[in-house]
């Protein structure tokens, strides 16, 4: 005889918890099914909107033409702007500043083939509202990257003897962004030939080359 007595109440407890969990899982699965495509579409749209801001006029779809390439040992996704002949006129990719004030700052770069910055945008960050989040709200500051090149600017904040402003009360955030953009540019210059030689994606079926 077992000395553990299983009474009705215990069974009831297990049944109740299992029932709640099963119903919860069903509803979660349903919600996931319904929202999966809209979430993917929303993320794509957000990325596309950011891409339009860092790339100049183009005659292709940079998002659809995105390609993966391994640079410095890690795979990255690049979004090229191409002219009618298919030549890359500007290249966009996302880089990350791991040393923000709180967490990683993600930066979308738009760089011309000669290494000149077309524009940059912050796509994700957790910086302090009112201080560090100036990197998304302070337009003149974001625009101060425009036209800069590795060799034409001192890539540091003014406090460190560079060309870029820091904000009142926030130096860490701009410092992290400037450093990440600089690293991104260095990566680009080192892999430039490989990246710019990437052929345009095949046209969709039915269309003659």
């Amino acid at each position, binding site marked *: 005889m077992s000395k553990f007595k299983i009474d009705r*109440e215990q069974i*009831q*407890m297990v049944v*109740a*918890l299992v*029932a*709640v*969990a099963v119903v*919860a899982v069903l*509803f*979660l699965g349903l*919600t*996931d099914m*319904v*929202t999966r495509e*809209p*979430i993917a579409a*929303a*993320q794509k*749209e*957000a990325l596309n909107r950011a891409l339009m801001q860092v790339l100049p006029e183009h005659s292709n779809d940079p998002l659809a033409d995105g390609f993966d390439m391994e640079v410095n040992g890690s795979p990255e996704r690049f979004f090229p702007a191409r002219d009618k002949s298919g030549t890359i006129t500007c290249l966009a990719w996302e880089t990350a500043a791991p040393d923000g004030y709180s967490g990683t700052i993600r930066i979308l770069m738009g760089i011309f083939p000669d290494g000149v910055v077309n524009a940059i945008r912050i796509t*994700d960050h*957790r910086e*302090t*509202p*009112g*201080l560090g989040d100036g990197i998304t709200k302070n337009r003149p500051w974001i625009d101060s990257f425009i036209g800069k090149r590795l060799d034409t600017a001192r890539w540091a904040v003014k406090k460190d003897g560079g060309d870029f402003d820091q904000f009142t*009360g926030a130096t860490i955030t701009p410092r992290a962004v400037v450093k990440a953009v600089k690293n991104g540019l260095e990566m680009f210059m080192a892999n430039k030939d490989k990246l710019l030689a990437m052929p345009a994606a095949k046209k969709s079926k039915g269309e003659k080359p």
Partner: protein
Amino acid sequence: MSMTTSTESTISKSEILADGFWHNNTIFAQLLGMCPLLGVTTSAENGFWMGAATVIVLIGSNLVVALVREGIPDHVRIPAYITIIAAFVTMVDLAMNAWMHEMYLVLGLFIPLIVVNCAILGRAEAFASKNSVSDSLVDAIAVGAGFTFALMLLGGVRELLGQGELFGFSVFGADYPDFLLFILPPGAFIALGFILAGVNIINRRMKANAERKAAAEPVASAATSTATEATS
């Protein structure tokens, strides 16, 4: 079962509404849910959407808990409620990510954190587990509206003082020197302190008015009784 139904109808719907929205307001009276309150109320709009997400979870969890309360043994009610709340939070989280992507990015971690907003488990445990489905729905709407109101009020005050704007529209003009303190977390505490002081003043006035009314009534009835005595 019949015992619980007899105790259910002791409070009226309007009392539940007044209690949830004002007298027992999650923020003003109970000071619960401080984490989203202080975290996301840098603007009135953020406060509103955080409140709206909380209201949806609260309505869902109150309804379901009131529906299943008879079938859940006492010993496992807390894990059962938490599972129900967590399911609703995840559904709201996914839905916001899909259809309100930009606000989702702003509110970020605070949406999943609704799970641990003790105000919600508090309503499930203190109200929905003891009351009818319709009363629990009214309670969820009242408490949720009170919470949203508090978040919007604090967000509005901080946005107005910190950036000179309200719902993104400039109020004090472009020359307003941003008062950074109110955007930062300490500003949330300071603004909340002043709001609580204001709420206490209103409550005291309301109480004084009610007392004056109560004091005036017996006098009036006494006056009429002496009048009738005199005529007789």
